[in-house]
């Protein structure tokens, strides 16, 4: 009897424990903890501040945000993450830095959290996050070192991720009797017609360095080009790459004045202030065009798929967030990441004016925002391999392509020799970094 009673009590105790565990607050253990987040001072992240406040209210975990201009984040994060004890618990990186961060051992693999029953939310549904975003911003490894594959591992979750779509002025296209371009041939034709009508056609980034390379890459993927062949030989002087540079030159010649000085902000401003008929870049332009503080063209903008060249392809970029290897509060940091990218968090980001990363969020809100249906249709074509996310990319991006492409758009010199010279420089860099030792 005593034995039975003991067994019964133990069973009840176990049941009570299981029930308690089921209803336990997973955040309770971390209440009062302060986590420090490093992310960019960009629109999506500014809007996320309200979600962060809600996170603190719900969980008791305090969040301190260190927001910097996005191209300046890397220096600060690298310095902080290379200390023995860092201050950041969460860092948000431009996707092209992930390879560098991981190769230097600065990030924590997220598998240890996603396999922890006490931390992971069973309703989180990682599969619902757009695959291209996840691959682009969060996964490191695989055959190329920056993609999924047998050696791939997850280091980050997309947040503020993006792909490219075409935004166009419905009123101008209607007035001019133009069809929205679906292919690159049509796009070039429309640019020319708009230019002849005295209307600046397509705005673009064009500032020396990262910005102009990003603009060229937008055209390179759909036109069938790439940066390296399978043996890491640079092919930036291929016919496709030269054609992409030619398109960029035509964009600069037919677009608004000042493209060689435009970063993303200036290019977007030219469109939002009504000084260009089209904008082909990140989907972030849609939320910006609705913002009366930024835009004079609210209600006049239509959205279409990124024009197709020899294949369909759009960029994958923006940001992902992860946890530094030297973060003092890793578990609380994971709970924060999980919260802001959960289904509820993603939906809340939409309500706050940010950009979702989940397919279900895009589909559920397609009737509210014109661009969402286009983005959902574009995402299967989004190319997570549209640029190589290797540590050497920064030098190629800024120093080699960023210089050569400036020459393309600011001079009338033949493009092929410019790209040939850039290709040689790129090869020298890869050689210096030891990429051909095994060949």
């Amino acid at each position, binding site marked *: 009897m005593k034995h039975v009673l003991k067994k019964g009590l133990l069973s009840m105790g176990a049941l009570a424990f299981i029930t308690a565990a089921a209803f336990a607050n997973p955040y309770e253990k971390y209440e009062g903890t302060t986590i420090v987040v490093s992310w960019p001072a960009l629109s999506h992240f500014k809007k996320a501040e309200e979600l962060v406040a809600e996170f603190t209210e719900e969980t008791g975990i305090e969040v301190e945000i260190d927001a910097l201009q996005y191209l300046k984040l890397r220096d600060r994060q690298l310095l902080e993450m290379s200390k023995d004890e860092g201050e950041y618990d969460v860092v948000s990186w431009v996707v092209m830095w992930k390879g560098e961060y991981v190769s230097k051992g600065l990030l924590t693999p997220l598998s240890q959290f996603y396999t922890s029953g006490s931390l992971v939310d069973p309703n989180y549904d990682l599969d619902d996050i757009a695959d291209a975003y996840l691959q682009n911003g969060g996964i490191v490894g695989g055959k190329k070192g920056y993609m999924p594959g047998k050696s791939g591992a997850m280091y980050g979750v997309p947040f503020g991720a993006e792909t490219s779509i075409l935004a166009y002025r419905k009123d101008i296209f209607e007035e001019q009797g133009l069809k929205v371009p679906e292919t690159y041939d049509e796009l070039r034709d429309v640019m020319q017609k708009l230019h002849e009508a005295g209307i600046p056609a397509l705005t673009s980034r064009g*500032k*020396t360095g990262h910005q102009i390379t990003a603009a060229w890459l937008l055209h390179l993927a759909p036109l069938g080009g790439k940066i390296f062949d399978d043996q890491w030989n640079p092919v930036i002087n291929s016919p496709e790459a030269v054609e992409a540079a030619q398109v960029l030159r035509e964009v600069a010649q037919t677009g608004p*004045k000042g493209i060689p000085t435009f970063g993303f902000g200036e290019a977007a401003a030219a469109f939002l202030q009504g000084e260009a008929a089209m904008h082909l870049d990140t989907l972030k332009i849609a939320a910006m065009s609705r913002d009366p503080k930024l835009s004079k063209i609210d209600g006049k903008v239509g959205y279409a798929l990124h024009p197709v060249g020899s294949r369909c392809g759009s960029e994958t970029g923006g940001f992902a967030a992860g946890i530094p290897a030297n973060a003092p509060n890793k578990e609380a940091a994971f709970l924060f990441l999980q919260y802001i990218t959960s289904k509820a968090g993603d939906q809340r980001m939409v309500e706050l004016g940010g950009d979702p990363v989940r397919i279900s969020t895009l589909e559920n809100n397609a009737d509210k925002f014109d661009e969402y249906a286009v983005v959902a249709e574009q995402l299967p074509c989004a190319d997570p391999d549209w640029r190589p996310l290797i540590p050497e990319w920064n*030098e190629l991006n800024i120093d080699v392509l960023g210089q050569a492409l400036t020459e393309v758009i*600011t001079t009338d010199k033949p493009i092929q020799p410019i790209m040939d010279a850039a290709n040689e420089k790129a090869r020298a860099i890869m050689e210096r970094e030891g990429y051909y030792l095994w060949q």
Partner: protein
Amino acid sequence: MTVLTQSRKPRFAAETMTPYTFITPAILVMLGGLLYPVFMAFYLSFYDWEIGRDLAKAPFLGVDNFVRMVQDPQVWEVLWVTLRFGFWTITIEMTLGVALALLLEKPIRGASIFRTIFILPLMVSPVVVGLIWRYLFDARIGWINYYLGAFFGIEPQVWLGDADLAFFAIVFTDIWQWTPFIFIIVIAGLQALPSEVVEASTIDGANWYQQIFLVKLPMIKSILIIALLMRLIDVFRGLEVMLIMTGGGPGRSTELLSLHIYNRAFDTQQLGYASAISVLLILIVFAISTAILTMANPMKSKSDV
């Protein structure tokens, strides 16, 4: 021959050493602050190091970074840009600054108000100067295009997107900010000149031209040299305005040596290589400063010989 003897205090007498004792802490702090970064620049220039990697494990490259630097056409390109920039800015700033100081040295009506307004650019931080002029030169919204169009019918120019125009723009901005510096130094020198000498030259019949070029400017020669030296060092050191206005572009048309070092160090993460170029910069500045000071040592006089 008369031999002069002089009673001398012992070299290490307490009285002699007291001033040194007082200034020793300041010297140590200054040397630490100055020598440590210089030493680190030299040290890193022999390694392949990136921020985020353990410095102790950085591969030792010997003089590879220096060999690479000598063979790197980019370094010579930006050095040429720096020298051209220095030539135009310093020549114009010195000429304008001295001319304005000569014009305004006399106590004419409104001179003090003009002087105050004139030195305002000096009080603005280089970052703000970069921002202000970036927007003034902006092709879309800049005032410069607006007024050139409104008053002279000139077509809008993409000032910062054309290699020649962008170079002109940064030279213009530098002149705007730093001419007052020359002005203020020179006017202080002119006002400190003994009035008897100037009056004497007037009595002797010196005309305006002779007074300026044979009396006043020679007398403030040491001040002019110091001003020149400071501007030269600034040209090799400064990067904020270019970083903000043009980022060194288009191409490398406005990339000065210091900005190139910054880009190498932080954009392309080649700290070792950037340090090697920094060593070059230190040597250039040191050589120029020494040459100027040697050629025209303001402290040197025949009595020292």
